[in-house]
């Protein structure tokens, strides 16, 4: 292989180093001899080879480390995951016969490898091919059932977890595709990576094992261990044991070695209970996977339940205690065993205990700076490595850093050491780094080269620990000094930032989204039904959310969740409902983001204890606890329509956020950083969900299956990492190759690049991509997108701050390192498709050049980096910071009417000029214009409705009154009224707009003068005109009919006719106010009703009642219009009750009624102030009567005539035909002419003015009341006499009309009554008649007398 040759040539001196360096830097190498190997080599290939070489060389050391001790990597949990990954064996490995290791991933890669031209050359490629999924399975099955299961179910996870080669350190699982570096296309790469192991364990490699091995550790009798042993031809069973322990340990980078256990106790290593991803935690997933609870250690079992209660602080304490115990145990054991210098592990892991039995004592060789051989050669490697890193040829720098640090923290088994030593003598070149001394030298020196990154991505403690590391000190004192210095700086700055950040935390939100009537009210829904449905849905949504949160601790039933979500989605299935639900969902999702807050010490501690504080560079995309609800919601909302709407909602929110301008003229750096952090977090979250939604149809495991198996690994996204079968993948790609994402990612990314907003845009695109499934990532569109990302990755970005650069590269590195990421693309040369943006004229104003990213932001946005605040001590000064922000905004179109353009070129030109003017304004100005326009027009609208409209309505009413008064011809009255109203309306509209014009102008100019002092004056005109247009539109929309002035012109007309002179322009304009001073003196209608009713009851029961005047006064008070507590129904009830009270009272206290009549009169008068008086003079001329006389002809009309039944409402004089039908057939008809003039017109008047309250008096003599009056212990004659008094009183005061009384009498006689009652009634009537002298005609009294006489002996007639 060329690459190998290159390296050999360099070592042997055949090839000049400088030449190689130049070649690597892509500089011209004219000096090269013609036969130079470089000329026919591929640089990328070399990179891959080189990285594999490093891994192979150091593999045994790394393994040792892992076996022996905890401290491989700083990362806690991730390590485990790392260990889970499988590695292919390298071809180079003699030991490996065939690769048995197969991951789905591997398979894919293999395929690709085959496709690639290179593969032919490589034997390995073929081998790789041989490993196929089925093989694996077979093997596994052979090995053990449990392992098989584990594979099937967990395999995916493993894959995902281990993306970095570093992990190789864990011998157990050779990474398949492994190093980020290695592209799939090159099968050999894989092999190389693995090789080291093979060497080490030779056959044990069959990684086989990944997960299983891992688990083994946990379980006392792990079949897997055996398996791995078996498979491996190796002698090294011991190794196996060793592995176990390591994988579980999560010391931080800085964490001390095992040896440090004793000396350094203060640091508690975090247990890896990652709340968000259960599956990762060994404890939680073992049982599920294997379903063998027995496997768990005692400790495990004890541990598990606690783990599940993630939230409670108790759990943490409990865990801590467990850890303490564990540690204590370990210490004891060590003492007992007197084990080697390297005690096992400080880690709390339970596994260790088990292992003890298996543990053997090993001799380890520690690195010694004096024993480094071939320093010059190693220096060359360091240089090459450095060039690769500096030239962005390596996909994930962070991964490399882990790798190097792991070496630094490792030791070597003595036996290995000896072996390597001898090998080296044979082949220096091939084994140069195999010795611990050499590799440590290499690592430390390489670290020195990237110290600039180290100081940023390492946390305080890590820096200190690494700086204090003996090896670092002895191998490269400068690095140690540098690290310690960085540590010091960081401590200082933390103090400062602690102080400065205090009290700046924003409060948590309420956990709900406020109803906003502009977007949420009925007008935003197509129908009322849809609106009502959404009302329910909103409540259901929150109910589900609360239920979810509450039942999380007690164990959540997913099938219930699913059912509830289903019913939620079913209770409103229109598109609008889904859209609103999606919007609500999106807002709530954003709301779930924790506010920007400095972490409290307590929460830091908590975090340390519950999740690995170690860097999470390999962390897979996952959902936090809070996000889980939303993820599950999407997952269980098996409703494509909703999901599409959700996609839209997320996408539009993302776009809006992405283009949000950052900062303004007055904000300082810190403000902008805060804004940036907030926006970035939101974008990251939304795009993660958008990505999830995008891949869902392609990658989701059917919910039914999930529910059935109970294997809900909800926190992670393992399904997206699964590579489909080769053929399936091909088909899918072919099928979907032309599909496009919901957002124009390519466009956005290139625009962001051009606009210098990558810091904002790139990270969320990375989040989005990270959630896509295996296949989607390989579609044409995304391949193009990735190419741009690669291109960006390799750019130098001189104008960026160091932190910003590291931030961007970390994000990209993380993405590139994901297990399903198509790394091969990186090495595919693509000449096209790369952004061509001229970056020469970058100004300082672009966001990317801001100093945005401080340590806490870096940490917060890149959780996969160390989770500790990283000190930023950049001294680089790049550009001036103080520059306005660059804003990317789409131009606002204020008004551009196409018709106008066509009609008038001049106008069109003006419009274009205006557009240009606006376009030329800074975006902030445009926003201000928009705002001013909106507010000023809204203010004008309010003014119009508050003043102009009521004024116009009043004027119109006045006109209407005049018209009605002067109108002689009633047929055309309505028309003329309508015409008048229409005219008023048009006048209103015209005047209103005109009056607004000046007002608007003035307001706009005031506002703009304050907000945009330097804006050119025409802008005021622009804004004013925009306002005017809006107003015109508004009046067109809202003042389109005369309804706004008068709801119903016909009703108005009738009531005006009825009112006659009484009509006033503004009836009841005085509104009672709750603020009036008399408020406290107001009586409560409710209380009054209760009291009055109670008194009536007491009277009925002949019980004593208190002086009624008090309650009657209350009634008066309640009935007054000034009593705001009173409403018409209450008033009605009071009137009704007071009449009842009157009757009951007179039936019990007869003559005393006169005492309270004045009081009652006050009540009644208050309730019915507008009683129409009979004014006989008003009567119309008698000719009309004649006209009406034909009615008389209808003599035998048997209807009992009632005023109501008379349809001719306008008749002034009515003929009353009274037909008394007796059973005897003796029909007597009396004709009485009653002047009922008043009655007709007064009716509508009564109704409109007194709500028909007077009608209650029309039933004074109803059957009920007569029974009531008869049912008394008092003397009948007195009672009826008292009634006569009351009736006369009512007549006198116009509560009762003569007609009404006549009617009532007639009605009474239509029923059967005992004679005594009839007699009493007659007496009463006579009494009334005698005392009622007002009647002009006297006919009324005549009639009463007649009735009295007639009825008095009616009974006798019958009897006779």
């Amino acid at each position: 292989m060329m690459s190998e040759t290159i390296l050999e040539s360099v070592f042997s001196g055949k090839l000049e180093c400088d030449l190689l360096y130049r070649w690597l830097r892509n500089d011209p190498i004219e000096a090269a001899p013609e036969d130079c190997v470089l000329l026919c080599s591929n640089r990328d290939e070399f990179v891959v080879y080189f990285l594999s070489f490093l891994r192979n060389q150091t593999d045994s050391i790394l393994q040792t480390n892992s076996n022996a001790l905890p401290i491989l990597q700083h990362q806690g949990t991730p390590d485990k995951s790392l260990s889970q990954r499988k590695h292919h064996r390298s071809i180079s490995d003699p030991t490996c016969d065939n690769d048995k290791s197969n991951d789905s991933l591997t398979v894919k890669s293999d395929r690709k490898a085959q496709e690639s031209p290179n593969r032919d050359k490589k034997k390995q490629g073929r081998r790789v091919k041989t490993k196929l999924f089925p093989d694996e399975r077979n093997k596994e099955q052979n090995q053990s059932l449990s392992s098989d299961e584990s594979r099937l179910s967990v395999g995916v996870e493993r894959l995902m977890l281990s993306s970095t080669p570093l992990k190789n350190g864990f011998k157990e699982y050779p990474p398949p595709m492994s190093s980020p570096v290695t592209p799939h296309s090159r099968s050999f790469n894989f092999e190389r990576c693995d090789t080291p192991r093979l060497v080490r364990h030779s056959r044990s490699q069959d990684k086989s094992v990944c997960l299983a091995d891992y688990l083994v550790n946990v379980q006392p009798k792990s079949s897997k261990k055996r398996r791995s042993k078996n498979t491996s031809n190796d002698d090294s069973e011991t190794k196996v044991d060793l592995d176990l322990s390591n994988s579980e340990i999560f010391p931080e980078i800085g964490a001390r070695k095992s040896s440090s256990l004793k000396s350094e106790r203060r640091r508690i290593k975090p247990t890896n209970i990652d709340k968000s991803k259960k599956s990762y935690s060994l404890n939680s997933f073992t049982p599920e996977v294997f379903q063998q609870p027995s496997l768990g250690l005692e400790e495990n079992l004890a541990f598990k339940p606690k783990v599940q209660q993630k939230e409670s602080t108790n759990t943490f304490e409990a865990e801590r205690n467990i850890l303490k115990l564990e540690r204590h145990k370990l210490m004891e054991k060590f003492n007992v065993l007197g084990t080697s210098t390297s005690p096992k592990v400080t880690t709390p892991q339970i596994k260790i205990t088990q292992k003890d039995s298996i543990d053997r004592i090993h001799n380890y060789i520690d690195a010694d700076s004096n024993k480094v051989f071939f320093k010059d050669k190693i220096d060359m490697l360091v240089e090459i490595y450095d060039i690769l890193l500096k030239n962005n040829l390596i996909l994930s720098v962070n991964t490399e850093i882990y790798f190097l640090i792991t070496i630094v923290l490792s030791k070597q088994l003595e036996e290995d050491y000896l072996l390597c030593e001898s090998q080296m003598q044979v082949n220096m070149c091939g084994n140069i780094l195999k010795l611990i001394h050499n590799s440590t030298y290499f690592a430390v020196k390489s670290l020195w080269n990237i110290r600039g990154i180290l100081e940023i991505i390492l946390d305080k403690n890590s820096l200190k620990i690494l700086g204090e590391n003996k090896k670092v000190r002895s191998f490269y004192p400068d690095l140690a000094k540098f690290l310690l210095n960085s540590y010091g700086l960081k401590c200082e700055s933390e103090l400062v930032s602690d102080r400065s950040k205090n009290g700046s935390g924003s409060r948590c939100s309420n956990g709900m989204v406020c109803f906003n009537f502009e977007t949420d009210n009925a007008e935003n829904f197509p129908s009322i039904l849809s609106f009502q449905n959404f009302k329910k849905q909103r409540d259901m949504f929150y109910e589900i959310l609360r239920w979810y949160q509450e039942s999380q601790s007690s164990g959540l039933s997913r099938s219930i969740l699913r059912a509830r979500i289903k019913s939620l989605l079913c209770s409103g299935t229109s598109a609008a409902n889904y859209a609103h639900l999606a919007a609500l969902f999106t807002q709530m999702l954003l709301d779930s983001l924790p506010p920007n807050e400095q972490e409290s010490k307590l929460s830091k501690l908590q975090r340390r204890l519950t999740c690995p504080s170690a860097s999470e560079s390999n962390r897979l995309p996952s959902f936090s606890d809070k996000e889980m609800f939303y993820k599950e919601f999407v997952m269980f909302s098996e409703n494509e329509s909703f999901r599409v709407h959700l996609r839209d909602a997320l996408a539009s929110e993302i776009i809006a956020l992405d283009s949000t301008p950052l900062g303004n003229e007055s904000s300082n750096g810190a403000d902008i950083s805060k804004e940036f952090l907030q926006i970035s977090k939101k974008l990251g979250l939304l795009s993660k969900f958008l990505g999830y939604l995008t891949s869902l149809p392609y990658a989701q495991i059917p919910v039914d299956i999930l529910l059935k198996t109970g294997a809900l690994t909800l926190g992670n996204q393992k399904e997206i990492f699964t590579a489909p079968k080769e053929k399936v993948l091909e088909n899918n790609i072919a099928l979907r190759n032309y599909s496009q994402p919901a957002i124009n990612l390519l466009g956005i990314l290139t625009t962001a690049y051009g606009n210098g907003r990558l810091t904002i845009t790139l990270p969320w695109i990375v989040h989005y991509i990270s959630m896509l499934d295996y296949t989607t990532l390989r579609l044409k569109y995304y391949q193009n997108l990735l190419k741009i990302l690669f291109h960006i990755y390799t750019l130098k970005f001189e104008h960026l701050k160091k932190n910003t650069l590291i931030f961007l590269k970390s994000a990209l590195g993380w993405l590139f390192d994901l297990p399903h990421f198509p790394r091969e693309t990186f090495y595919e040369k693509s000449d096209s498709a790369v952004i061509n943006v001229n970056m020469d004229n970058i100004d300082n104003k672009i966001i990317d050049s801001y100093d945005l990213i401080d340590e806490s932001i870096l940490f917060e946005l890149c959780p996969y980096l160390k989770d500790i605040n990283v000190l930023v001590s950049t001294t680089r000064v790049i550009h001036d910071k103080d520059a306005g922000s660059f804003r990317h905004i789409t131009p606002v179109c204020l008004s551009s009417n196409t018709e106008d353009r066509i009609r008038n070129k001049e106008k069109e030109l003006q419009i274009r000029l205006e557009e240009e003017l606006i376009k030329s304004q800074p975006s902030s100005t445009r926003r201000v214009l928009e705002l001013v326009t909106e507010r000023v027009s809204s203010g004008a609208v309010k003014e119009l409705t508050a003043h102009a409209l009521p004024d116009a309505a009043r004027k119109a009413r006045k006109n209407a009154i005049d018209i009605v008064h002067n109108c002689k011809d009633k047929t055309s009255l309505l028309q003329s009224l309508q015409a008048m109203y229409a005219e008023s309306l048009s006048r209103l509209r015209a005047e209103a707009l005109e009056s607004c014009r000046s007002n608007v102008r003035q307001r706009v100019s005031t506002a703009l003068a304050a907000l945009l002092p330097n804006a050119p004056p025409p802008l005021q005109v622009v804004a004013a005109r925009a306002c005017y247009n809006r107003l015109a539109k508004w009046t067109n929309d809202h003042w389109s009919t005369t309804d706004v002035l008068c709801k119903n012109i016909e009703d108005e007309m009738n009531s005006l006719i009825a009112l006659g002179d009484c009509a006033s322009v503004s009836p009841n304009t005085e509104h009672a106010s709750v603020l009036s001073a008399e408020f406290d003196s107001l009586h409560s209608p409710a209380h009054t009703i209760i009291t009055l009713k109670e008194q009536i009851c007491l009277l009925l029961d002949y019980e004593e009642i208190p002086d009624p005047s008090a309650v009657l006064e209350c009634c008066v008070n309640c009935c007054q219009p000034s009593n705001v507590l009173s409403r018409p129904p209450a008033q009605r009830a009071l009137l009704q009750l007071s009449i009842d009270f009157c009757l009951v009272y007179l039936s019990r206290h007869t003559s005393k009624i006169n005492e309270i009549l004045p009081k009652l009169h006050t009540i009644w008068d208050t309730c019915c102030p507008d009683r129409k008086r009979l004014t006989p003079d008003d009567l119309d001329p008698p000719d009309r009567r004649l006209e009406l006389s034909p009615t008389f002809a209808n003599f035998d009309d048997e209807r009992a005539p009632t005023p109501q039944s008379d349809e001719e409402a306008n008749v002034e004089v009515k003929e009353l035909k009274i037909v008394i039908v007796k059973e005897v057939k003796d029909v007597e008809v009396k004709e009485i002419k009653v002047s009922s003039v008043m009655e007709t017109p007064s009716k509508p008047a009564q109704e409109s003015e007194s709500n028909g309250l007077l009608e209650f008096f029309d039933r004074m003599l109803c059957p009920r009341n007569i029974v009531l009056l008869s049912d008394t212990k008092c003397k009948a004659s007195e009672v009826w006499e008292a009634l006569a008094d009351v009736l006369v009183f009512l007549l006198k005061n116009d509560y009762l009309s003569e007609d009404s009384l006549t009617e009532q009498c007639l009605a009474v006689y239509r029923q059967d009554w005992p004679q005594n009652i009839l007699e009493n009634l007659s007496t009463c009537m006579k009494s009334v008649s005698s005392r009622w002298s007002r009647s002009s005609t006297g006919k009324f009294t005549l009639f009463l007398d007649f009735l009295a006489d007639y009825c008095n002996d009616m009974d006798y007639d019958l009897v006779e």
Partner: protein
Amino acid sequence: MTTTGLKPMPLKTYNAIVKDFNRITSFNRKSENELRKKYKEVPPSTMGSIISLLVQRSMKQSYRKSPVISSKYYELYEELMKDKNQGDVINRLAESQGISPALFARSLLQNVSSDSAVVKKYFKDTTLIENKDLAYQVFLGIMNDNQYGPYADIIKQSIGLEYELRLERELRMMNISFSDENLLRLRGYDKTPDFKLDVPIAVDNFIINWIESKALFGDEENHLGYMKEQLMCYWNRFGPGMVIYWFGYLEALDSTPEVNNMFILRTNFPDKSSITQYKIDL
């Protein structure tokens, strides 16, 4: 109007009232008055509200609107009415049937007309009933019933309104800006508390965005109902708020998880001293 609020009612007192109530055999105003007499220390409106709730619950159990039952009632009524001078027939029948007099009366009216609008009209105004004896009996039934009937309805409405207005007055006097139910409805809100504060205030350091006025006594059953139907919905839209049970509430409500978390309970409008308004400092 008193400004000092009631204290939440201890469960013991409440249970005693319920116990006594359960001994009552009839639901007319007289038995109610006796109960009130026994608990003089309980404010009348609180007592009235508690009784009202209890009666309503009993009626849910024992009153059915079915025509079959109402015609049976009518038979009973006619039987008794054959004998003149029976006096308060409906009251006695209602007592014997364990339902409230007004409900019994309405049930009788269902036999007079099949048109429910007519029945309603008669029930609202007994002077319209043509059958003189029935009219008088129904009148008596309604007068003797404090919990059902047109007057009871109006009383309830009126009380609700009254306390809303009192609340409104308090808010206005403190210059707390709010949107009332009508305004909110006008703007198309889907769920409308009595008062949605335009600017939130803090009551005893609890921030509230809305106020719901309940002119009744809050016991567990109706509180749970309100919570489900109204309070949670308000929270879902406006965040935390305050409920005023003007006639008191059961002490136990204070220890439900939602109280002091999603909303607070009060028995009157809080004192000025416990209200913090947002002040704009320039």
